[in-house]
């Protein structure tokens, strides 16, 4: 019963998206309203009906059978619904229809033509995704006969951070689709129609950027805590697929500031809005087509890949041709001084695009080589570290000083006077840190200087209390400084100790003494585990904490996992992983002392928080305008 309704609702949403597409061409308010609402409601229904099927463990549905099991904890029954390819498409569609609804909220008599053009493009995108789902990835497909129980769900995915990671990322991607549609609509306008398209685009870009930030951060947090080797970014193709749209969204965000302020760089911003979403779709392609394998890839089905590729081609060719033909009317040749706020935003834009191009190059290069020469090569972390880091360094330097500059050209001496306190503060903090950690490396110095350069410049702006400085900008930029601090500390000053231990053995790491107390056998909801108990003592022989790393076995899916045990404080993480061994020979244990790691997550959260404030400010502004 339920699956039939779910499938029906899915077809219904296809119907509404098609009707929205054609009706918005005619700009009929009442009919558009019906389409938008119909689209939203039908996708809500299909989404919740699939979720219901997962919650009640309806194994007559292939999707539930393949991805669930009666013993799976309820939280993961719910989130597991979108943790697979077919279910995640329903999530994509739902978020798409929600944003579609918000676009429609803009609709007024004086902008009706423009907004219906946005809705037209958005409808086309929705048609593309819904059709894809129905044709190649229908989650309501049945399995006959209905099964008793399911195949279970990969245990390393059963984690709260990972549960919420897809919805947040999709808000990001879909927000970029709304920006794309706004850009296309702006290009489609006739030469005599003047609409401040950037006012409509900005809230979507800010929302997309904010949620891409937190979505990516949660993915890294999950990797750090869950995968057991302390890494949090691997330049995996699918990580890159989320990072590239983020980079362009950052550039777009900043260029919209210039568009707002000086009405210049409009063509550039429009181009960015097209490219950002195109990259999101290409990212979808890389994940779901089977062209690469990665820890993240969902499906290995070339027909899905061909569909998405065609969809990308249609969107891309149409939008880029439109841009070529009609962007001229937005073109300007306004002058801007290099040493000004505008100049620094332009530098940021250029560098973000260059980093994006480099990451894109590294990601697809193995595929290009394979297609052209049948050889396989790897482009791994060392490539990205050697190329991306040198390009980001100047971007960060400019990011420190940019917001302090005025919009027009400024006297260089005046600039120097402004930033002198932060130069001083940066220098002092760098020296202090190096005295503390007693380790000197070029990367370390660079990282610390950059981190405190950002932090001190933003503190300067806070103390100046001038109304010119946007709160959300200061907070987000501060977050970046903290992020860099965390990245530098944890990469450069990490201490690793690997050793074989018998029960009651102890080891010293930094100022801590860690004693291997005992091994337990633990039973969990859907797993059994071997747990090591370690007591951590500080210099005064006080017990700081008890760490309990595990090696788990999930019988339903036949998986082994390692669960690291981590003690966190602001200065460092103590990270223990239990290896193999036995009571006779002892156990291999891996200890990590990770300085400042928590600042990576704090920094990301602060950036996110700044974004939220900006979304709020934007919404307030919109309310007063409309």
């Amino acid at each position, binding site marked *: 019963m339920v699956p039939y309704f779910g499938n029906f609702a899915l077809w219904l949403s296809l119907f509404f998206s098609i009707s929205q597409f054609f009706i918005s061409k005619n700009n009929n308010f009442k009919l558009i309203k019906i389409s938008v609402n119909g689209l939203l409601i039908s996708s809500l229904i299909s989404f919740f009906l699939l979720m219901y099927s997962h919650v009640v463990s309806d194994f007559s549905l292939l999707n539930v059978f393949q991805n669930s099991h009666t013993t799976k904890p309820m939280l993961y029954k719910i989130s597991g619904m979108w943790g697979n390819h077919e279910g995640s498409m329903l999530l994509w569609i739902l978020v798409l229809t929600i944003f579609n609804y918000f676009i429609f909220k803009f609709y007024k008599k004086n902008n009706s033509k423009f907004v219906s053009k946005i809705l037209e493009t958005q409808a086309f995108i929705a048609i593309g995704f819904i059709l894809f789902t129905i044709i190649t990835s229908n989650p309501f497909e049945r399995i006959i006969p209905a099964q008793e129980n399911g195949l279970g769900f990969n245990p390393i995915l059963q984690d709260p951070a990972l549960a919420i990671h897809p919805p947040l990322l999709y808000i990001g991607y879909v927000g970029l689709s709304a920006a794309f549609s706004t850009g296309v609509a702006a290009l489609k306008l006739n030469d005599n129609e003047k609409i401040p398209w950037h006012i409509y685009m900005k809230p979507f870009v800010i929302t997309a950027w904010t949620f891409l930030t937190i979505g990516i951060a949660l993915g890294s947090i999950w990797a750090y805590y869950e995968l057991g080797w302390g890494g949090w970014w691997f330049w995996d193709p699918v990580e890159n697929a989320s990072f590239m749209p983020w980079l362009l969204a950052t550039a777009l965000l900043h260029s919209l500031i210039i568009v707002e302020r000086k009405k210049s760089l409009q063509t550039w911003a429009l181009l960015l809005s097209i490219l950002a979403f195109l990259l999101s779709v290409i990212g979808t392609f890389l994940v779901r087509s089977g062209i690469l394998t990665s820890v993240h890839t969902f499906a290995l089905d070339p027909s899905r890949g061909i569909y998405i590729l065609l969809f990308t081609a249609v969107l891309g060719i149409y939008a880029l041709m439109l841009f070529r033909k009609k962007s001229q009317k937005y073109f300007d040749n306004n002058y801007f001084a290099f040493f000004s706020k505008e100049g620094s935003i332009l530098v940021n834009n250029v560098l973000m695009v260059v980093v994006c191009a480099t990451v894109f190059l590294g990601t697809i290069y193995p595929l290009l080589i394979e297609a052209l020469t049948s050889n396989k090569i790897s482009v791994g972390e060392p490539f990205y570290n050697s190329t991306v880091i040198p390009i980001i360094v100047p971007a960060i330097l400019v990011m420190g000083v940019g917001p302090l500059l005025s919009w027009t050209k400024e006297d260089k001496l005046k600039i120097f006077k402004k930033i002198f306190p932060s130069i001083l503060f940066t220098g002092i903090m760098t020296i202090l840190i190096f005295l503390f950690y007693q380790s000197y490396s070029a990367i370390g110095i660079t990282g610390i200087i950059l981190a405190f350069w950002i932090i001190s410049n933003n503190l300067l702006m806070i103390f100046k209390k001038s109304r010119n400085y946007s709160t959300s900008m200061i907070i987000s930029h501060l977050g970046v400084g903290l992020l860099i601090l965390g990245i530098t500390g944890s990469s450069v000053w990490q201490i690793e100790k690997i050793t*074989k231990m018998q029960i009651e053995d102890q080891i010293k790491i930094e100022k801590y003494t860690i004693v291997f107390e005992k091994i337990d056998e633990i039973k969990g909801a859907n797993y059994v585990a071997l747990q090591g108990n370690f007591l951590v003592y500080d210099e005064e022989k006080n017990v700081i904490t008890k760490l309990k790393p595990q090696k788990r076995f999930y019988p339903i899916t036949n998986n082994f996992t390692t669960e690291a045990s981590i003690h966190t404080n602001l200065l460092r993480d103590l990270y223990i992983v239990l*290896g193999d061994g036995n009571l006779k020979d002892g156990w291999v244990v891996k200890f990590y002392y990770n300085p400042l790691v928590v600042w990576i997550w704090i920094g990301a959260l602060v950036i996110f928080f700044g974004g939220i404030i900006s979304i709020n400010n934007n919404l307030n502004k919109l309310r007063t305008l409309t």
Partner: protein
Amino acid sequence: MITKKIFITFIFISQLLLSNSYSVEPDEILQNPKQELRARNISKYIRCMVCQNQSIDESDAPLAKDLRILIRNQIKDGKNDEEIYKFLTDRYGDFILLKPAFKLNTLALWLLPFVFVLVGIFIVFFHNKKSKKI
């Protein structure tokens, strides 16, 4: 459904096999700290062939362990870094290098980022110059 199938397989196999390893194990570590550091650095650039995007330094797969030990033996035998990389690429091809080699077919890969930066700088100055005239 095929989610992470390969990753699961790798964990499963690595845990199930007889000679288990857990990244650099204590009995692999060389006595000479300089040599050990060399071994770690080389290992960080060698891909684990049965993992997703990990180096043999991070991975606990048995093949990764074998290669780590092999590298350490070659260092003890006095081989230099190039010879060790060549030994591995002769057998596994360039795919095993996480840092792509500097070859004809990777010329574009290594040069293009510089080109991108130059193009970026060029665009900024070109736009600036052009608009100054107005």
